[in-house]
């Protein structure tokens, strides 16, 4: 496991496109100490390597085909309704090419 320190945690935060105050990173660091100790309970079990990871509690298969019926999608107004920045029927973003 990668060693955790403030820089690593800041990198993890940056990958998520978010940031925190310095004191919050300190809180997080002490939280990591606890979580790492709690994780030890899992780490100690060497039998686990032979077990397949469980991704969902059980399989639910969706195999039927839907009828080929036309349905009303969201209207443009509905799709844009919650965006804080829009212009000309589209969501507006800062220029990508400067």
């Amino acid at each position: 496991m990668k060693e955790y320190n403030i820089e690593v945690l800041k990198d993890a935060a940056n990958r998520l496109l978010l940031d925190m105050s310095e004191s919050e990173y300190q809180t997080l660091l002490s939280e990591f100490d606890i979580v790492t100790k709690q994780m030890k309970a899992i780490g100690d079990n060497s039998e686990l390597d032979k077990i397949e990871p469980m991704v969902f509690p059980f399989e639910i298969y969706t195999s039927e085909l839907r009828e080929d019926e036309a349905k009303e999608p969201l209207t443009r107004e509905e799709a844009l309704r919650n965006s804080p920045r829009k212009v000309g029927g589209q969501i507006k973003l800062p220029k990508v090419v400067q």
Partner: protein
Amino acid sequence: MYRGLSIEKLHELLVNKKVTPLELTKEAIELAKKDSNNAFEYIMESEALAIAESLKEPEVNNPLWGIPFVIKDNMSTKDVPTTGSSNILRGYVPVFDATVVAKLKEAHAVPIGKSTLDELAMGGTGTSGHLGTTYNPFDRSHTRLVGGSSCGSAAVTADGIVPFALGSDTGDSTRKPASYAGLVGFKPTWGRISRYGLFPFAPSLDTVGIFTRSVKDCAYVLNATAGRDEKDMTSSVVPVHDYVKDIEKFDKKRKIAVIQEILDTITDKDIKKAFLDNINKLKESGFTVEFVHMDTKMLASLFATYFVISCAEATSNNANLDGIKFGPLSKGDTYEEVMKNARTKGFGELIKRRFIIGSFALMKENKEELFVRAQRNRRAVVDKLNEIYKEYDFIYALAAPSIAPKIGESSDRLSDEYLIADNHLVLGNFAGLPSLTLPLGLKDNMPFGVNVMGKAFDEVGVFQLSYEIEKITGLKDLVAKGEQK
């Protein structure tokens, strides 16, 4: 006047035209406005009154007709603000109803409000939502938590404002607050109720939850909400039952297991004694209750396994909250800056920390050792549970090791009592099993509960056994005493 009455009782009054949906709704809204537990995000006054007014002729065979209810604010409600108690969704107004909400509206139940929660349902205390702490109605001095994350729904049901409320449950977010607030709190089998429109937290664990004040009322709500939904590919095609019809017909040949090691970690002697007395009463009444064993180390690993899996899943599920498609306007010269500003300001500190833990667990160097290992452990735990279920039909346990904690009280997060007794309800989420908490007793005038967990899709059995336990405890229709402040 109608405060604290059950669905069953209100239905009787409605059918006999002793009360109208409009009168019930008006009273519920008045009580909601006076709520002093910080339970509501939004009171749907005009929406609810319009629905109630349209309900004229009682539907004799529809127990939910005209019944007011509350929706946890992490479920989409068409044209009604839905924030998940997060500032990043301030002002967000969905354009569709979650399927579970749509089904209840089709059954002519009347939604009167959106309840607050731990931010985006991540948390178990009812303190991290953007409105702050939600209080336990059983303690009018506001010193105790009601628990989370479905804190608002638990508080409004315990306060008698509505006879039922929707919650959600990823680790124990419906069943733990139910224990603290004298309620029935139920999570169905994973896939039994559609999750379309429920904000995903950790989809491999998430279910919709139901709060009521009696077991039978809970079965009524499941009757109206269970079933396959083509909008949710993880909703199940397993046939739905009538969960009320045979609720009084528990087959005493069915066997109940109690995991000794969970009980052993509980230090509160009164609560433990109440549980053992209850087991004795069950045995005296002809039920088969036996103690079984689970490795303490495995039980102590439940919380870490849950934490890693849920944080990692949450990290990717909340990537869509970027302040661009919805959420308050944020500044920035590039789209990354816009997103980063929106997310930095929009998320509370607790969930940011959880996201970072999730991101750390998913880093290339850590994924196998943390995330995948937690998933492997999840299977090991579920395999062990399935072994128990080969011989037994139910697992019976205390839902929590204590009455509702005081605000600011902290527990030793490395103790077995915390890791096991306080977190074992997550077993139901790991294995996707139906699991119901109901009241067992009161200590210092605060309730505490037990939990019944059945086999996948055996909701009928879970309700039947819970109904029997409710008869033994005599604790149903509990409403917090004292007037709202």
